[in-house]
Each structure stands twice: as C-alpha cells, then as structure tokens.
C-alpha cells in the first residue's frame, strides 16, 4: 500500500511538471509583454500551440535520417526524467534515489547531445552554427554546474537533492559559498535555457541564435515535443533553484495530504516568482555577442570554483 502510494506521488510529480511547464512559458511571455506595455498572448497560448503542432503532419527534409526523427523523443524523455527527479513539491519521493544532482546535470547533457546532433543532421549552415555554439556554451556551463553541485554538496553533505533540500530547511544560515553558488546557478540556468543575455527565445532569423537554429528544420509533432522539452527544462531549473535555495514549504517524506497540498501551492508560487524575476532581468538587459557569452558563463564557473575552494578551506564558509 505504502509502495503504491509512493509510486502514485512520484507519478503525480511527473504529470504535474509536464502539465505546468507550458503554463510557465505562457506566464513568462505574458509578464514580458506586460512589462513592455503590450497586451501579449493569453497564458494558455503555449498549450494551444502545442496542440496545433501535434495535430499537424511532420515535414521532414529529404535527407533526414532516423536520428532526426527519434531525437525529439529522446530529448523529451531525458529532460522529463531529469525534471521528475528534482524535488518540486515534496522531498524524498520514491524514485528520487535513482539519480543525484550530478546525474540530473548529465541527463540534461544527454538531451543536449541529441539536440546538437539533430541540428547537424540535415546539413544546413544554420543547424551547424546552432550546434557548434550550443556545445561551446555547454563546455563552460556544465563544469560550472558541477562546481555548484560541489559547493552545495559540501555544505549539505550529500549530492542527493532531497537530502539537500531537507538540510537547507533545517540548517538555514547565510553562507558566502551558497551565495556564490546561487549567482552561478542563475547564470547557468539562463545559459541552459537560452534566455536573454545568452540567446533570444523570441527570434528566428538572427545570426546569433543558438537554440532556435538547431531546431529550425523541425515541424509538427517533432517540434512540439522539443518545445515541450525546452519548457520542462525551464521549469526544472527554477524548481532546482527553489529546491536548493528556498526549500521552505516543501512537503517531507512522511507528510500527509495536507502537507503535499501546501507543497504544491508554494511550489507554484515559487515558479511564478522565479519566472517573474527572470523576465524582469531579461527586460532590463541586452543580448550579448556570442563570444561574450563564454566570459559570462566562465564567470559562473569561477564562482562555483570559488565556492568549492572556500569550503575546502573551511566548512564554515
């Protein structure tokens, strides 16, 4: 009985992240439009877009290979699994022991690997440029992420996110190293989600685009699945930041239904706040040149490294 319940709650988390992800995108677009004094599309517009896309036929380039057709599903699946393993409304879910934060980072790496390959499959100039730049950003963002994981893990004594979240609730103190890690993680999140100072999610036909360039040849259901994966990734990163740095309200392993409900409500609130802050930052800053980005992400790597080093010097930082 307990096992069935545990699996059920894990299932709820998987469905919930999937259901909320497009809503989060819709919400950020709405907020952005309002900040720019536009009306903006409705919050549910991403859901409508996805529905429209899955119903359409998929147009494949003549020389698209099996990899091109299967990559969207693999990208989606790895991202979804990663998102399901981040504690959102409750810690210590049944399968949270399957992978720690390093594994979640690597899962996102798998998704990126397939995305970059899919961008190169047709052999167009845009696809190549997108893949090449995506991999460049990843070469700095991934080690930065690992360093941030180190910082957090050294503070909490575990790389397991549920344990980290519970530790942060019980021993919430201000630490220099965690501050550095937070800034680093925000930079990594902006880079990984192709948000404004790094990439512009709202444009096509711009030579500096990265993410959109890779998926240029996709259409119909394939595009829908990739878009959904991108939305999931944004939700994952905001949940991750919330889980490590603001885990309050999250339900514990032995909390009842009420605790879970409180957890869900606070989590949705955190998502909204996170999305709002991100959009606020985006509207206040201009997009960078591509070769400025390595310096930006390299900053995150340095911050993460500094945080780790501080903790190697003394556990009290």
């Amino acid at each position: 009985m307990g096992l069935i319940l545990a699996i059920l709650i894990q299932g709820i988390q998987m469905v919930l992240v999937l259901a909320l992800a497009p809503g989060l995108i819709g919400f950020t677009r709405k907020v952005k439009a309002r900040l720019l004094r536009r009306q903006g599309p409705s919050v549910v517009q991403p859901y409508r877009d996805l529905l429209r896309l899955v119903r359409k036929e998929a147009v494949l380039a003549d020389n698209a290979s099996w990899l091109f057709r299967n990559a969207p599903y693999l990208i989606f699946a790895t991202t979804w699994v990663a998102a399901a393993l981040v504690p959102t409304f409750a810690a210590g879910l049944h399968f949270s022991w399957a992978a720690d934060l390093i594994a979640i980072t690597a899962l996102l790496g798998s998704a990126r690997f397939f995305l970059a390959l899919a961008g190169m499959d047709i052999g167009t100039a845009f696809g190549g440029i997108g893949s090449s730049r995506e991999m460049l950003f990843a070469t700095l963002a991934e080690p930065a992420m690992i360093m941030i994981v180190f910082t957090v893990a050294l503070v909490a004594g575990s790389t397991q996110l549920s344990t980290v979240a519970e530790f942060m609730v019980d021993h919430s103190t201000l630490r220099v190293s965690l501050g550095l890690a937070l800034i680093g993680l925000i930079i990594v999140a902006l880079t990984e989600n192709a948000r404004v100072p790094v990439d512009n999610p709202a444009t096509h036909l711009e030579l500096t685009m990265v993410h959109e360039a890779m998926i240029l040849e996709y259409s119909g259901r394939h595009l829908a699945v990739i878009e959904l994966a991108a939305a999931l990734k944004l939700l994952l990163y905001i949940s991750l930041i919330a889980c490590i740095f603001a885990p309050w309200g999250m339900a514990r392993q032995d909390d009842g239904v009420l605790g879970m409900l409180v957890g869900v409500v606070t989590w949705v609130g955190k998502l909204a706040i996170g999305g709002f802050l991100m959009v606020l930052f985006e509207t206040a800053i201009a997009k960078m040149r591509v070769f400025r980005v390595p310096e930006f992400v390299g900053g995150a790597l340095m911050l993460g490294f500094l945080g780790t080093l501080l903790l190697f010097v003394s556990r009290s930082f």
Partner: protein
Amino acid sequence: MPIVAALLSVAGLAGVAVVAPILTARRVAWATPVVYGASFVLAAVLLICGLLALLGGSAFQGTVHLPVGLPWIGAHFALDPLSAAFLVIVDFGAVVASFYAIGYGAHEEEPGRVLPFYPAFLAGMNLVVLSADAFSFLVAWEFMSLSSWALVMAHHHDEENRRAGYVYLLMASFGTLMLLLGFGLLAGPDGDYAFSAIRTAEHVPWLSGLVLVLMLLGAGSKAGLVPLHVWLPLAHPAAPSHVSALMSGVMTKVAVYGFIRVVFDLAGEPAWWWAVLVLILGAGSAVLGVLHAVLQRDLKRLLAYSTVENIGIVFIGLGLGLAFKTNGMAGAAALAVTASIFHAFNHSLFKSLLFFGAGNVLTGTGERDIEKLGGLVHRMPETAYLFLGGCLAISALPPLNGFVSEWLILQAILLSPDLPQWALRFLVPASGAMLALAAALAAACFVRAFGITFLSRPRSPAAETAHEVSRWQIRAMYALLAVCLIAGIFPGPFLDALSPVSQMLVAGAMPKQPILPHLSIIPISESRSSYSGFLVFFFIMMASWAAIRVIHNFASRAVRRAPPWDCGFPDASPVTQYTANSFAQPIRRVFGPIAFRAKISQTMPQPGDMAPARLTLSLRDLIWEFIYAPIEGAVLYAAERLNILQFLTIRSYLSLVFAALVLLLVLVATWA
C-alpha cells in the same frame, strides 16, 4: 589452475605468432581467419582465467615459478586480484578485436606485416599482466612495445607512419629505461627481484619517491600522460584499426596496470606529495588531451587524443586514491581506486568500439579525414548506430558506462575536504573542475566527430559511395556496445568484482552494492549519494515510448518529405555546410589562446590591389616546443660536436681507451 591455463594460452599465442609467417609466406588464403580465429580462442581462454581468478577468490589465484630466463632467478608468474582484473580488461579487448579482425583483416594489403605480430602483441600484453618479477615484467613489456611497434610500421610506405614508428620506438625505449631504473631501485637487499620479495622489503622513503617519478615517466609515457603523450596520437592511428583499438583501449591499460602494481603494491607507503604529482599530470592530460582531440580532423587521431584525456581521468582517480591512502582513509581510497579501474575498463570498451567504427569508415570509404565524410548514417546505418553508442558512452552521458565511473570519481573528490594537507585541499577541487571541463569538452568533441562524419550531407564522392562492412565487424561492435550498456545499467556487480582489488591495494573496499532496491549503486552511504542506471534507463525508455504512443495514437503520425527549409535559403552545394573546422572554431577561439597560443592574422590588400585577402591561423604545440624541441636540439648539437671522434688517428683512439680505463678503475677503487 587458471594461472597455468593462462600461461599455456600465452604460449599458444606465441606459437600462432611463429606459425603465421609460414602461412603468409606461402600466401595461404585462409591465413587471416585462422590467425585471428586462433587468437580469438586463446584470448577467450585467458579471459575466462581472469574472470575465474577475479570472481572465484583465492582458490583460483596462484603463482608459478618457471626455470626459464636468468639462471639464478627464473621467471615468476602470478594471478592475484589486480592482475586478474587487468587480465579481464586486456583479454576482453583482445577477444573482440580478434573477432573484428576476421572481417577487417580481409582488406589488409600486406597481411604478412600484421598477422605474425598481432598474436605476439597479445602475448606480450598478457605476459606483462601475469609476470611477478621485475625481469619477466620488463622483458614482457619490451616484447609488447616492439611487437606493437612492428604493427605501427605495418603500412610503412606512408612517410607519416614511418615517422610515427620512429617517435614511438624512441619513447618506448625511454619508457622501458625508466622502468628498468625504477625496478633497480626497488630490488630487495640481496638483489631479489620477485614481486613478493620487493613487497616485503623495507623501502627508504625518498627512494620510493624516486621510484614514483620513474614510474610516472616509464608507465606514464606508455599510457600517454601529458607531456609524454607525443608518440601516442602519431602511433595509434598509424596501425591497422583493430590494432589501434588494442593499443588505445588495452595497451594503455597495461601501462596503468604497471603503474598501479608498482606504486600501490610494491613501493611501500606513499607520501602525500605523490598524490600531488599524479593529480597534476592526470588533470593536465585530461584537459589538454581533449582540447587537442576537439581540433583534430583525422578521425583516428581524434580518438587517440581522446585516449590521452581518458588516461588523465584514470590518473586523477589514482591520485585521489594515493591521497586517501596516505592519510589512512581506506574507504575513500577504495572508492577512488575502484572508480579509476572501472573507468579503465569502461574506456577499453568504448575506445575499442570507436576505433572499430573508425575502421569501418575506413573500410567503407577509404577516408579518415572527417572533412571529406558526411552523411554516412544513410549508407552505413549500423556503423552509425554503434558509433553513436560509443560517442554517448565516452561523453559520460547516462545511462551508459562512462558516466558511472566519472560519477564515482566526482563522488571521491567530494570526500577530500577531510584531507589534512593544504596543497591537496587546493589541488583536488581544481582537478575536479578540470575533470568536469574535460567531460564537457569530450561531449563537444564527439558531437563534432559523429555529426560531421555520419550526419549532414556527403562532402566527397568517397562518402557518397560508402558501403556497409562485413558482419564480423558489426557483430564485434554490437558486443562492445552491449557490455557498455550493461556496465552502465548494472554497475553494481562490476564494482563488487573489483572489491578484492581495492582490498589488496588500499586495504579497504567500497560498501557491498545491494542488488535491491532499485539496482542503485552507493559509493559511500545511501544518504550521501546513489545512482541507479537501471531506473534512469528504464524511465527514459518508458517516457519516450509513452510520448511516441500518445502522439501517434491521439494526434498525427503523418509525414511528408520536402526539401530542407534552412530559413528559406537552402543551398544545394555540400560545401555550404558547417565543416569540422568551423564546428570547432568557437572552442578554439575560447580555449586556443591559452592552450595553443592560437593566433589569427589577417592580411587585407589595399583597395584596388587584386591580391586575395588572407587569413592565417597559427596553433603552437607548446609541449613539443618547450620540452621536446630543446632535447632534440641538444642531441643534435652533441652529436655534431662528437662527430670529430670518428676521424681520430689510431694513437688518439688508444689513448682515449686508456684514459677511460684509468678513469673507471679510479671510480671502482674509490667506490669500494
């Protein structure tokens, strides 16, 4: 007794090596399948011996003393957990490579230059792992080096291969010399060179330190540690592909074995600064190796540089093991050493797989230059699929095996704030950062390698007319990919199998991996970290299956083929695609100025001048310039100065001989 069977099989391999030239000299048509088939069978016997000794416990281990070799010493051979583990690594690679070669070897133009040396090479590698005294070890080591050198020289018509062979021979001789000196320092008081005697002898600390340095030079040069790696990216690609796979995947592991055997097992208690040295070399190799790899356009050379990277990762693990061992943290040391050996095993799997893939590309197109390939996924679908699996594994992506071992090394790094030495406390997180950087760069490198070679549109007629290769080659690769997947999904039994090894080396073991729950592995304790490759794999499969089912059943499954979109401006010419060079350009631009002193200079002609504008890129190999070029210069200079000695009169020669004799006698007199 497995040790006897193993030695008999080695003798059998040597026998095959003797018979092979007779077969090839008579141009027997079935020489290739017979030699490789026999190697396959004998390597399989050796593999079983290794497995028995590793899993069966002490009942299957043992020592043998043969009255061959030097009269007062003889030859000792032993099968203990460490040699058993490496016997498994060596012979699994050998089994698969022999199987692959039955298909691949059919295209060999001069089989007489490959067939005799191939079984000899296998015998040499096995003997290194089995030998239990310094003399047999060194003889086997040199035998391995020379037979592999002969294989590197198999295609000697190519100028580049001859140079590779020359550099390899020099570096191999240098490495063996260093090993010779190292073992000389280790000998017991009465000159007993058996490992069992060395192990129990008292070791002077500073002499042991010197042994470590000599081992790093000797075994490190064979393994490909930066800055001793220069021969590796030349020699590994020059050999036939199945031999490249063995050299990169297996022979470097034999070198790692030699290092572990001496430093962890024979040289006595480590000092903490040993770890510093090993960590610096490991981290440097990891990052420099992959930075070189990401810029290569020769597929096999790219793979060879990536070997340098992975050896660096193995040595980071070993350095951590030394650091923990010297501070008495047995559990952490066991984790680091186990992770390191597991990574060595994993690397032997996916590097062989990738070299086989490169061999298939070579058979199918005749090209190694990835700028001339492209679109092979259509013409060689199975090779593409298998190569992709290898790329995923080597890029440390879950749920494959490369990720598990790198994850374990990262977990070991997280234990190191408890180390008391400050130098280590600063160095260990830095090497962790280097490891993460290397892993991310490896992903970029293999996206490029796979994307340019197999995806996009063909860039040359050779790529357009590529054909799939023989079933032998494909099946060998399937076997490797299957083990990669199994080791990634069920790493627990592999780690358990290595626990006697870590028990022997650092007197500690990782916690016994539980079969249940969730088939997860636990490096230290459950609350710290756990990872279940099986669940991750299962979830990915379920999630993608569910997505496909839902969309195909409830939405659309219609497909229409159309010309590429490319923002409305598709160009039919394949030269408009991204090339390997352009793919690597951003990475070169970011990391090049530091690692290679990369400089780009433009010359723009004056307006009205009809000369073309030029863009020149200069990359410098700093290690060659600052270490090897000065040595080369010094040797040349000395040789020229000493040249006069060739043109002396007979009187001068006699007086020279006399002076030397007097000098030596004086030396002997003062010494005694």
